[in-house]
């Protein structure tokens, strides 16, 4: 049974990776997860400088989900390259750096400096463009195109992945735009903009007022988006959103994902990624699947 999949130039031993921001820089989970067994490790979103992020409170639980507004707290590129990456290099597993910026140039600088240092660069385009009054880079085709174009020019060796926002009227179109601009793969979905209010105090539950929804609640939405995109793309899709078990991962593959990422589930079950890999293995052996890639887009609609 062959569980390996390929995302751009990244050869993964199985389709299961971690979702950015939910797995720290890898070490935090090494006690519960065999990092060598992961398909790939995606680290917390990096900016050029370290960021302190938003004030607390930053998280709130919702029905079958959670909202977060971490505000992209991270150690910054230098500390990542000096302190975090060398440790991760002890493992066989490909490393994907997730990057974010406040200006288009921040993206291209990050991409240039990470190129060749990590197997993959995943570009989080759901960030406010400080120069355009804080509207998200992902929110218009023009600004999305600008970012993808810039990082494409900066990345020669690593695999370039664009991480798409679900806050769009047609994610398939956004994905297609990324493909046309030369992205090697797309990943979806990022968290969904969300709000919760404390009716006692009338204040929002998060200091940042709004945040991003993740967890099982969003799974059906994410699956629909993967399927919409799959039918229009040639490049591979990394699917995520509420995956907690092996069959969830299989669902994403049947909808069109080549690989999957596990986010919020890590918090509920720290060895979720391992259980999901085992679950996929069990499914494949039960169904007599030789190559796991056979599943991608295999939903039967007639």
């Amino acid at each position, binding site marked *: 049974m062959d569980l390996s999949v390929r995302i751009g130039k990244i050869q993964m031993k199985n389709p299961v990776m971690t979702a950015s*921001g*939910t*797995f*720290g820089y890898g070490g*935090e*989970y090494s*006690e*519960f997860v065999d990092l060598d067994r992961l398909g790939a490790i995606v680290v*917390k979103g990096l900016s050029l400088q370290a960021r*302190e*992020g938003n*004030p*607390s*409170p*930053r*998280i*709130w*639980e*919702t*029905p*079958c*989900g*959670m909202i*977060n507004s*971490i505000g992209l*707290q991270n150690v910054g590129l230098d500390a990542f390259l000096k302190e975090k990456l060398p440790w991760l290099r002890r493992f066989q597993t490909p490393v994907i750096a997730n990057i974010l910026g406040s200006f288009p140039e921040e993206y291209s600088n990050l991409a240039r400096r990470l190129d060749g240092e990590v197997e993959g660069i995943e570009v989080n385009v759901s960030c406010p463009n400080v120069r355009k009054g804080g509207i998200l880079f992902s929110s218009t085709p023009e600004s999305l195109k600008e970012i993808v174009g810039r990082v494409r020019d900066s990345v020669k060796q690593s695999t370039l992945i664009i991480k798409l926002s679900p806050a769009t009227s047609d994610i398939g179109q956004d994905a297609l735009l990324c493909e046309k601009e030369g992205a090697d793969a797309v990943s979806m979905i990022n968290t969904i903009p969300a709000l919760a209010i404390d009716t006692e105090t009338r204040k929002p539950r998060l200091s940042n007022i709004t945040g991003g929804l993740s*967890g*099982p609640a969003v799974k059906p939405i994410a699956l629909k988006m993967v399927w919409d995109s799959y039918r229009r793309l040639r490049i591979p899709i990394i699917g995520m959103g509420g995956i*907690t078990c092996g069959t969830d991962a299989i669902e994403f593959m049947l909808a069109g994902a080549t690989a999957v990422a596990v986010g*919020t589930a*890590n*918090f*509920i079950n*720290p*060895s979720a990624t391992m259980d999901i890999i085992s679950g996929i293995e069990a499914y494949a052996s039960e169904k007599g699947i030789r190559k796991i890639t056979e599943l991608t887009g295999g939903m039967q609609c007639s």
Partner: protein
Amino acid sequence: MSRHFSAEITDIRQLSREHFILTLHRPPSAPEPGPGQFFLIRLPRCGEDPLLRRPFSIFDWDEGKLRFFIRVAGKGTAILAGSGPGERIDLIGPLGRGYPEPSDGKRPVMVSGGMGIASLFPMIREQGKGGLLLYGARTSDELHLLDEIGATGIETETITDDGSSGRKGTVLDLLHDAVQSGKMEGAVVYGCGPWGMLHSLLGFLKENRMEGYLSLEERMACGLGACMGCAKEIGGRMLRVCLEGPVFSVSEF
């Protein structure tokens, strides 16, 4: 030894309508906790709602058991309160940085507001005889566990917001008295309670340049330092309550 394990509920002892003690059978594989550390408990019997684990300080333990002192604060704790012996619970822990031992010759003074006693009890148990406990609650009904506390031999002073037992006031009043009567000479303070109380305590300790350790609370997701969800501004930096805390030294603020 794994910090992720499952344990059977052996007892749920109701102390009041809102408060209970959850006793679990401690499996041999579960590592030894320290005072001030906490566990993330996955709620039993639910589907994926409530989704997140709930953090609880370790209240007491020995080779065979783990005990938690819990107040019903919402739906998760209500589900726990409604569980029964024989059910299994999934835990991650012990987690976080607990209370350090008092440096040589220093007198440990525990300052507990409300549920703070859950986190401070292991210090009381370990440091009991020579120490001092300043114990405040809203009403006398909420001055729980005086028996178990008494059994440790610790010197204890109590106070309630409404004066229903002992003096009327807050633990800060007790603290000022203790200073007056010289009981705080060479003391190291361990504080746990509502943020308002800790804030005053912090001010007091800073002002008097005293050594002290405060246990904070924040909403948590991973408990492992990975999600950055529990970060709080402490001394100008966003520190993770689950990893750099929950106990912080006064000097960090």
